[in-house]
């Protein structure tokens, strides 16, 4: 069964703007799926249609095989959405906001209270339950949004840029939490501008641009398309100049940080040998962030230049 199935979805706004030009998309149950795209590409419109905030022009959307037009109520029971912007009454108390959301789904008072408590504790906002939401920091409000989206125990959770503008600590704790609920069976669809976030969390990915899906594949498959990859080496001893005969495209970022770009055909073993022969000792090595970014930019640019991919 597919957690989400979209076929030939079109959205044309008044004024003629074609936000979605007939997209097809399928997300398997249990997946952690990234929906990426530049600003105005159609990500939020797609999420808006799935969650009934945007009226589609044509096409079909199914949540866990339930057509949202044919059985709107049942489809919505399975869905949780974390919007891009804060969308709760900030004058209400945190606990009330989350319990009320459970009530809108028809949960009993007892279930609502228990679920709200569980997710508030999980997201570290239990201590804030009696505070007015407007007094919370931006990061805390994000947690309230996530707790609110989960309080009905949805099978499909959609997060529209959940970590935009939040600090590293919160971002990482949210990553851990999302990984945990995904491992427990919740299907997650994530849109984000932080490509390393998508790379780290998601198994499958679709890239949308100008209302069209320009790529839909697994993260692993996409990353294998990289023609070259950059690695960062932390050096044991400071280095003032690079040896001439490295044979790789290399940049000395600072005396203790060396960036080496390795082509698809070149193995990693050789670079270690070359560096070792040049008397350069390595204390640690990591992938340079931004490898997905290169692919993303390539796909979006090629779509902009006439769809060559």
């Amino acid at each position: 069964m597919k957690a989400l199935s979209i076929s030939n979805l079109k959205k044309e706004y008044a004024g003629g703007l074609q936000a979605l030009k007939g997209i097809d998309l399928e997300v398997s149950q249990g997946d952690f799926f990234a929906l990426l795209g530049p600003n105005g590409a159609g990500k939020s419109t797609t999420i808006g249609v799935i969650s009934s905030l945007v009226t589609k022009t044509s096409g079909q959307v199914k949540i866990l095989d339930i057509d949202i037009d044919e059985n709107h109520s049942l489809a919505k029971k399975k869905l949780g959405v974390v919007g891009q912007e804060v969308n709760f009454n900030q004058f209400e108390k945190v606990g009330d906001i989350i319990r009320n959301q459970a009530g809108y789904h028809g949960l009993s008072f007892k279930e609502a209270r228990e679920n709200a408590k569980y997710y508030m504790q999980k997201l570290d906002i239990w201590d804030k339950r009696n505070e007015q939401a407007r007094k919370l920091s931006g990061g805390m409000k994000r947690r309230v949004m996530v707790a609110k989206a989960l309080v009905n125990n949805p099978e499909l959770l959609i997060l529209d840029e959940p970590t935009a503008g939040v600090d590293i600590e919160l971002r990482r704790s949210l990553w851990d939490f999302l990984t945990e609920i995904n491992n427990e069976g919740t299907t997650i669809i994530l849109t984000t501008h932080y490509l390393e976030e998508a790379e780290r969390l998601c198994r499958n990915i679709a890239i949308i641009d100008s209302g069209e899906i320009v790529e839909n594949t697994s993260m692993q498959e996409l990353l294998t398309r990289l023609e070259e990859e950059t690695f960062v080496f932390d050096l044991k001893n400071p280095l003032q100049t690079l040896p001439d005969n490295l044979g790789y495209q290399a940049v000395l970022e600072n005396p203790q940080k060396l960036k080496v770009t390795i082509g698809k055909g070149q193995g990693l073993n050789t670079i270690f040998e070359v560096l070792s022969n040049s008397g350069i000792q390595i204390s640690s090595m990591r992938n340079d962030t931004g490898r997905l970014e290169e692919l993303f930019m390539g796909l979006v640019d090629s779509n902009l230049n006439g769809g060559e991919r």
Partner: protein
Amino acid sequence: MTPLEQYRALLTILYKEIHRFMRIWTQTLIPPAIMIMLYFVIFGTLIGKRIGQMGGFDYMQFMIPGLIMMSVISNSYSNVVSSFFGQKFARSIEELLITPLPHYLILLGWVLGGVARGLLVGAIVTIVSLWFYDLSVNNWSLSIFVVISTSILFSLGGFLNALFAESFDDISIIPTFIMQPLIYLGGVFYSIQLLPSFWQTVSLANPILYMINAFRYSILGASDLEALGFSINYAIFMIIGFIVLFASICLWFLHKGRGIRS
């Protein structure tokens, strides 16, 4: 959603609405009480004694049903229009739209919230009026029916206004330029029999006149309506007709996503 789930969801909306206006009771419950008290003191006690009888009753006695209805109408309307537009403005309406809630339940929840505030303020005004006049009720069931149905009607009106409103200015235009004149010219403070015949005829086009007079009849046992040849049933029919019309329009626009969906 099962009927039980719908019931729970409706209770949640109603609880939230009542909690909202109770939280800001100094803005929602106290001002109408003070305003009505001032009406009683100025128009009832000070000026009313000089006016004498109106429509066959003491002026204070004549005025009380109109003032109660005026409070019910304006508070039912303003509760729904400000609450629903506030939710639209803060985008918290999205909380409801992404849930399995059917449209009629959203409408019903807000209307019941408006009725709750309208009736509460109506009760406060009635209690205040009892300090000034020893009032007795002619027909309890009719008075309860008229006050509740009028509150439902104006709650629906407030909802419709909120659906179309795009700014805070839009939620004050109709109350200021349409409702207030219709209420004041609907016979709250005077009997339309005092008017020249032409203006009596014009007044009959004001639907609020029928509501105020139906309520006055239920309290005092007499009103302008019978004097002008209209039965109370006509007023009741009119109120129910408007409720059906407004509810249908609200549901249609909710279905179309007017003002709430892109």
